């Protein structure tokens, strides 16, 4: 089965947006983590994850997202999410992710609020 996650990066004046496409499982989560850590090493401190084209996540994938958030917080930066399906939004809430990452309905609102 090929349920490979695709990640695209867009650098912004004051941060970056990561676009995901596909299933966020362990492998997909690691893929996002690698790209996020590259950006952090590059000095990015504000990162928006746009999950527009992700319809399914699993709890292992989400736990990797939590690790990324923790790493970014250690560096004094912040991570936010936008364009979640209702079920992914709900899942993020139970998993505790909504506690230290802001969640926005769309990318415009997120960019404005984050000052990207």
């Amino acid at each position, binding site marked *: *089965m090929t349920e490979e996650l695709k990640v695209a990066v867009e650098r912004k004046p004051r941060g970056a947006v990561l676009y995901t496409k596909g*299933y966020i*499982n362990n492998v997909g989560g690691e893929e996002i983590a690698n790209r996020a850590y590259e950006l952090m090493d590059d000095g990015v401190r504000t990162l928006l994850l746009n999950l527009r084209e992700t*319809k*399914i*996540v699993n709890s292992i994938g989400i736990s990797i997202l939590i690790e990324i958030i923790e790493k970014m917080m250690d560096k004094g930066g912040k991570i936010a999410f936008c364009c979640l399906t209702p*079920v992914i939004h709900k899942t993020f809430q*139970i*998993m*505790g992710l909504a506690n230290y990452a802001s969640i926005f309905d769309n990318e415009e609102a997120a960019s404005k609020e984050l000052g990207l």
Partner: protein
Amino acid sequence: MTTTAERQMELTLPMVPDIEIAAARAVGNLAREMGMSSEHVDEMMHAVIEACINAREHSGCADNRIYLRFLGTSQDDGSRIDIWVTDHGRGFDPEEARSRRTAPGTPHKRGRGLQLIELHMDEVDISTTLNGGTTIHMVKYEKKS
């Protein structure tokens, strides 16, 4: 109450990476064909994914198989989907697993699968015996609007 349509699917899948997607897709199709709302379909798919991952990651079964059964029933007042996810593995103590949980919303890296399942479905019960395998049975209702 008359039962107007019933459909059943039984699925045996090998425990290979991402196999949970095949299971989720199968129940998703069945649910959509029965006219369930897309949000309910999505919730069921996510619940099945977590149940399959648990079977693959924790059951330690020898036959390397996940057994799924989906039963869709349409009634006058709506429809109902029953899902059973079974493994022939080591079993576990659900009470003990529940006691290891942190409160919902507390950031915690693992130990959320069963919690997510309970949240996404209307009814969940687990039958599991030591070395006798595990079946998790879950139900989703959709009332006619």
